[in-house]
């Protein structure tokens, strides 16, 4: 039954999808400005990510190979350059936003300006990656991430109207500020469905030595992991809708987010919020730093594993070390963390097609997946996600201009 402890991989991945700084911030902004109305966008993000995780996990379990590995081999270096540059750039930006998220949480806890936290936070993240095995990083983040359950408790304590929340899962148009509404919808999707998540997940499946016997585990992991993250991010939206919206509070500073849990949970809520922000952003920092190193190592055929001695995969280890430092720089320079978050979420949304569309080809490749190729449900889902991703690509910039800020 040891197999089932693999659910940790799904939980970690979904923390990176739904509970890091980007998702908490965009869901709270959505709730504050439009009440429950944007809940359907979250549901769409949760379902999309669950499908993408299941597929890249299945790919890894059946073929013993990661998504990036197959992307380079099947599509050739010329095409590979496009997802490589797009995912690399966007993920590096998000990595900065996450380091910013941890630093902001520490600033709120201590009063010391967030820029001073950038280097200590980055150093601890690096040290964990340098010394810890994949299992330590994975299980540690999953267990500590449970603190985020405080969001669900807070949401329940506020007694939301279940019927109006349920109704919000059906898409609807806003009565005011349409541009802002769609801008937030794009940001929420960008914050939830991020390429580094499934790069990390499929590499994690290889690190954890998944085989074809793990197909069931993979399905349950993708589902449970996303339910965990999904319920909690919906809670964040619900809380913002019930605490911020009636008071007409617009979230334009991170400090305001801390009020999310103080209203329903009091002083303890403040501590729990900071703990959640700190841990989930830190976990996501580890996740993205690894995902970036996996991307480069697998794309260029370097030796890679978070379980080897660092000098046995020197380029891989050097990659996450240098990239962590690069990502810490904007935070160190005191860049506005919320602005950084919003920009990187919109760009992430725009970068989706280059990784989602090739997946459609790979998931139907009988040479690789044999009889485990996509069935019609997965294919319909993937086509919907692909179309959605192309819409996001073209919508991201106009909505950023019309509804951002």
């Amino acid at each position, binding site marked *: 039954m040891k197999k089932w402890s693999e659910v940790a991989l799904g939980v970690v991945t979904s923390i990176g999808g739904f509970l890091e700084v980007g998702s908490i911030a965009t869901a709270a902004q959505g709730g504050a400005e439009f009440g429950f109305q944007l809940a359907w966008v979250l549901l769409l993000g949760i379902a999309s990510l669950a499908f993408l995780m299941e597929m890249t996990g299945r790919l890894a379990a059946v073929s013993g190979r990661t998504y990036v590995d197959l992307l380079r*081999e099947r599509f050739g270096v010329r095409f590979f350059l496009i997802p490589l540059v797009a995912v690399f750039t966007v993920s590096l930006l998000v990595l900065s936003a996450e380091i910013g998220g941890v630093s902001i949480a520490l600033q709120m806890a201590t009063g010391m300006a967030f820029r001073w936290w950038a280097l200590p936070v980055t150093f601890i993240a690096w040290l964990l990656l340098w010394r810890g095995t994949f299992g330590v990083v994975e299980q540690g983040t999953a267990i500590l991430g449970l603190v985020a359950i405080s969001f669900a408790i807070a949401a329940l304590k506020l007694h939301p109207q279940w019927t109006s929340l349920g109704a919000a899962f059906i898409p609807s148009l806003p009565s005011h500020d349409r541009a802002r509404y769609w801008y937030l919808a794009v940001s929420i999707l960008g914050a939830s469905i991020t390429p580094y998540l499934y790069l990390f997940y499929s590499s994690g499946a290889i690190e954890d030595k998944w085989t074809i016997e793990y197909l069931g585990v993979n399905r349950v992991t993708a589902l449970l992991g996303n339910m965990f993250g999904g319920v909690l991010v919906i809670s964040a939206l619900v809380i913002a809708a019930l605490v911020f919206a009636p008071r007409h509070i617009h979230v334009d500073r991170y400090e305001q987010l801390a009020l999310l849990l103080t209203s329903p949970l009091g002083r303890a809520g403040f501590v729990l919020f900071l703990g959640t922000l700190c841990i989930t952003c830190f976990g996501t920092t580890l996740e993205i730093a690894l995902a970036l190193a996996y991307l480069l190592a697998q794309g260029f055929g370097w030796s890679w594993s978070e379980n080897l001695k660092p000098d046995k995969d020197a380029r891989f280890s050097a990659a996450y070390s240098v990239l962590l430092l690069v990502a810490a720089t904007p935070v160190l320079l005191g860049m506005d963390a919320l602005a950084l978050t919003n920009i990187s979420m919109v760009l992430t949304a725009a970068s989706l097609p280059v990784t989602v569309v090739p997946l459609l080809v790979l998931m139907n490749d009988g040479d690789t997946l044999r009889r485990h190729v996509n069935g019609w449900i997965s294919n319909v889902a993937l086509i919907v996600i692909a179309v959605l991703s192309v819409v996001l690509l073209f919508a991201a910039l106009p909505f950023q201009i019309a509804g951002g800020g």
Partner: protein
Amino acid sequence: MRGLSLVHDVLDAQLVDRNEEKIGRVDGLLLEVRDGEPLRVATILIGGAVRAERIGPWMTWLRRTVRRMARQPDERVSRIPFSAVRRVADTVQLDVDGERLESGHLERWLAARIIGRVPGGSEERT
């Protein structure tokens, strides 16, 4: 006889050496041209310069410029005879020692000069 597609099965495939260590990818393939003899696949190429050529002249130019600025003008490309291929499957195994390949220069340099010298760099993880 079973056909092997050079583009589908060999080009861009993960390369491993005789110890199953990952040593890069098949960045390029060369045909051997000799008078009076049929063409044959002769060489596997590994290296950034080969990749850059396949991407386009602009990438070759970009690479050269960056390398000049970094004062690293030498291109380190490995040329391995196709006869060293032992197996073509998910990975392509070569009967070579990865430690001696020119294209592994950066890996060895980083391991010896930087990564291995940082505390914990050559120790088992916990």
